[in-house]
């Protein structure tokens, strides 16, 4: 859908930005890009919202003109932001995005869009009703290597019968301030929601809409999965995604076709290796570029790091506010990933972990969260 651009024509005023949720995602990932936008006069953070005043105070040291708030309602009535970045825990995304949209603000919601499809659908309905955009922060989509790979897949350069293997995993090291992300009741799930939302979106960007064929994870009782494998079918490719919070997986995406192979790294934006079947690997130059500023005729460039990808994503979202251009990932695309995750959890089975003894695996199977859910039902 198209949304109205309410700015006066030619306005060069910085876009007014509110941030809901002032935790690690903002401080560790977005803050540097937002500061760069402020220094260039293209965006201004006007409101910081978090029930924890120490967090708004800490983030406020980076954004001196922003006002701190403990509730969303106060922030919107006092600052009337044009764009709201929702970076609260995933279970709260729907509540905060709907509130922002109802207040007339466009929304950039951190991934995952929501932890259940019903919440994501509610967010989409709120965006349509408010005639505002709902963008999802899938930063890996800003990788120019991905754009080049998509072009190769679509052109048939890899040949038919594409098979892929996607792995992303390391020992968990993300700063969190509570144990909420590690409880099924409060988080809804673990590594599938965290890294899986990226994986499914990344693969969908390459291959189209996914179908979940099989899914297994290691979550037990009230715990959340730290390892999972999902087998996926796409219109022109099939394969698996494996994700981990506690194993050093060999991270990357390998695509094998009848004619050639590709290798991408999901958070090294310009990484793309290519080889004809049986040939030598070679780095493939990517020609794709992205807008680097919010001028009507922008300079163009390509992100080299994950942090730069966040900046490019924000630039494109600000261009959507100013000129009505498309956002990198919209709510419909976000919903696709959430529906796939829902499908995974609905058919979850215990995952075989090769370091467990037979007796341990049997006990882990008995404790699998899907069994306790079934018993409770």
């Amino acid at each position, binding site marked *: 859908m198209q949304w109205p651009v309410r700015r006066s024509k030619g306005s060069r005023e910085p876009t007014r930005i509110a941030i809901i949720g002032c935790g690690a995602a903002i401080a*560790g990932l977005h803050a*540097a890009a937002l500061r760069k936008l402020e220094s260039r006069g293209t965006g201004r953070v006007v409101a910081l919202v978090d029930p924890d005043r120490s967090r708004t105070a800490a983030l406020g040291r980076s954004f001196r003109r922003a006002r701190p708030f403990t509730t969303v309602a106060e922030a919107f009535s006092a600052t009337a932001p044009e764009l709201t970045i929702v970076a609260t825990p995933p279970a709260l995304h729907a509540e905060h995005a709907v509130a922002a949209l109802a207040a007339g603000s466009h929304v950039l919601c951190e991934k995952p869009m929501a932890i259940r499809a019903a919440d994501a659908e509610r967010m989409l309905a709120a965006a349509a009703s408010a005639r505002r955009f709902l963008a999802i922060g899938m930063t890996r989509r800003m990788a120019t290597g991905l754009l080049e790979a998509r072009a190769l897949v679509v052109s048939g350069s890899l040949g038919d019968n594409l*098979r892929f*293997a996607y*792995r992303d*995993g390391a*020992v*968990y*090291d*993300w*700063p969190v*301030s*509570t*144990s909420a*992300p*590690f409880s099924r009741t409060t988080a809804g799930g*673990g590594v599938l929601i965290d890294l899986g939302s990226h994986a499914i979106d990344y693969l969908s960007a390459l291959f189209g809409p996914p179908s979940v064929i*099989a899914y*297994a*994870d*290691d*979550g*037990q*009782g*009230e*715990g*959340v*999965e*730290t390892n999972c*494998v999902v087998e996926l079918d796409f219109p022109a490719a099939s394969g*698996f995604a*494996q994700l*981990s*919070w*506690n*194993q*050093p*997986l*060999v991270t990357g995406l390998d695509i*094998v076709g009848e004619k050639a192979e590709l290798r991408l790294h999901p958070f*090294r934006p310009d990484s793309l290796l290519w080889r004809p079947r049986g040939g030598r690997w070679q780095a493939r130059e990517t020609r794709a570029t992205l807008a680097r500023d919010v001028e009507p005729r922008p300079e163009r460039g390509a992100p*080299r*790091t994950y*942090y*730069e990808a966040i900046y490019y994503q924000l630039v494109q979202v600000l261009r959507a506010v100013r000129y009505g251009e498309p956002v990198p990932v919209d709510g419909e695309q976000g919903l696709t990933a959430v529906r796939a995750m829902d499908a995974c959890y609905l058919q979850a089975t215990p*995952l*075989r*972990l*090769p*370091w*467990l*003894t*037979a*007796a*341990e*695996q049997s*006990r*882990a199977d008995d*404790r699998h*969260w899907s069994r306790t859910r079934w018993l409770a039902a």
Partner: protein
Amino acid sequence: MAGGVAIVGAGGFVGARLVEMATLAGRTDVVPIVRSFRSVGRNAHLGVRHRIADASRPDSLENALAGCDVVVNLTTGRPADILPITRSVHAAAAMAGARTVVHMSSATVHWQVDTPGLPDDAPPRLDHWMRYARQKGLAENFLRERMRDARPAIVVLRPSLVWGPGSPWVMGPARDLQSGSAYLIGDGAGVCNLMYVDNLVRSILAVAAHPAPVSGFFHLGDDEHVTWREYYGALAAGLGVDAATIHAVTMDRYRVGRRDALDSLRSSSAYTWLKERIPQETRTLIKLRLARARRQEGESSHGRPAVTREMWELQTTRYPLPIDVFRATYGHHNETSFRRGIDASLAWLRFIGLHEPHRSALSMAAVSN
């Protein structure tokens, strides 16, 4: 809860496996303690409640030890923190009235096992070139002093190389074998003193379960004596790597290589000072450029072995670490054989995608013991 077993450092490699094994054995008396919520992530699948405490502050740790008779110190981290955290854990355990402190040291405090029958309580080599080993030694000396106290009993464990799924002693050799840069010093006849991670966990739990633990120092190792050639050969066979591609290094003595020179630079305080002052975004960019340079260089030096001092000394070890004293005191707990350990390690390498990367983990079978 009385009689609990506190695992300080439950988010580390050994700690996480211990909590997993205990949980899957149906135990509810094991209390994982970690420094921050982020360390809960590693074992989040178990649904076990973790306590949060700063192991370097006895007051913080004392509260977390409530209800625990046994305190197992499995903390890892910077060498500079080893001694202060050892002191703190001991103080907190004493304040909490714990019966036993189990302290994880390392056989590396000996430098090399260069005599047969090395006594379990041999003093650590404080002139060791490795800072980590010196700090482990200082921590041991502190605990040796405290062993004179009536309570708590202090059991210092000195395992050899801890290997198995998740261990760098599996990952490193596997990567080297695949890249063609693996090497054996001489003919690979040096003794490879290994301790399979599950065997180590069982030994720790045996001490924790002992009604009257004996204070002292104890070597820990697997039952079988294998050479480095046998260890690398077993991994190579499982990975489908021709053992003939393993380089034979014939140097008569160690000479400083580039990898050690770089490691030495990285462990300097000037490096740490500088690193902490460079913004994360810039660090990422520098890392990316260095990785590219390394890749390019790797292509030209593919297959060349980079001998490190640590590996030189490990591979020229002449004797097995004696493990009889622990066995006589606490019983035999090495249930996993070398062959089983190799099988599980190879299955894990497939699981993480280092071997047979196009195979889905859904199609892999579990390893049984």
